[in-house]
């Protein structure tokens, strides 16, 4: 399915990508993360299982097993540090 994927803060800088549109073969957030890790390099490193990052789908933070839907807005970012 088609997804809009956004990256923020340290992840945006490390991955060299703020936003992309892609086709995801799977149906969950974990499937998307696996697909991105498969790109290798920084993608494999930054999205490794032991890295702390958060995923939001349509602007709500979700767990890795959350389902994706066509044209969803997915965001991947480090733990937040505002306030």
């Amino acid at each position, binding site marked *: 399915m088609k997804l809009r994927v956004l990256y923020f803060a340290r992840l945006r800088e490390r991955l060299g990508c703020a936003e992309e549109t892609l086709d995801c073969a799977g149906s969950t957030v974990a499937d998307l993360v696996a697909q991105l890790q498969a790109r290798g390099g920084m993608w494999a490193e930054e999205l490794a299982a032991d890295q702390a990052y958060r995923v939001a789908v349509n*602007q709500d*933070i979700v767990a890795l097993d959350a389902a994706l839907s066509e044209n969803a807005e997915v965001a991947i970012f480090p733990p937040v540090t505002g*306030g």
Partner: protein
Amino acid sequence: MKIMVQSAAFELGAEVDAMRRGRSDIGAIASFVGLARDMNDGSDVAAMTLEHYPGMTEKALAALVEEAQSRWTLLDVTLIHRVGRLLPGDPIVLVAVAGSHRGEAFAACEFIMDYLKTRAPFWKKEETPEGERWVEARASDDAAAMRWGKND
């Protein structure tokens, strides 16, 4: 209720005066201002830049305020968070909560700050003598948010 994400500075006095203007049912206003410090994790900080996730930010802040309103009886809430480049001493965030009594105003104000620290999509990047660095999330902030109990 007022929720703002802005690069402009805010005035605590003006915000609190706006909450109480024309009403006499408010008995307590608890407020909080978070400020940029000149020192963090042992390094001098010359400036910081706050990045956020436009769209989600407003939604997350509204959810925090709604959650506070479901837990306590509140008369009004103002929440303002700045983004962009800030210098040491600059105010970053303001939370003001009006209630009939002080207990709920204090609790809701601290609750909103604790949840904001772990749930609102803001990220700080600091300029230090060693270069730029992204601020790391603190375990103490997770712990502070946890004490309000699970609600997901």
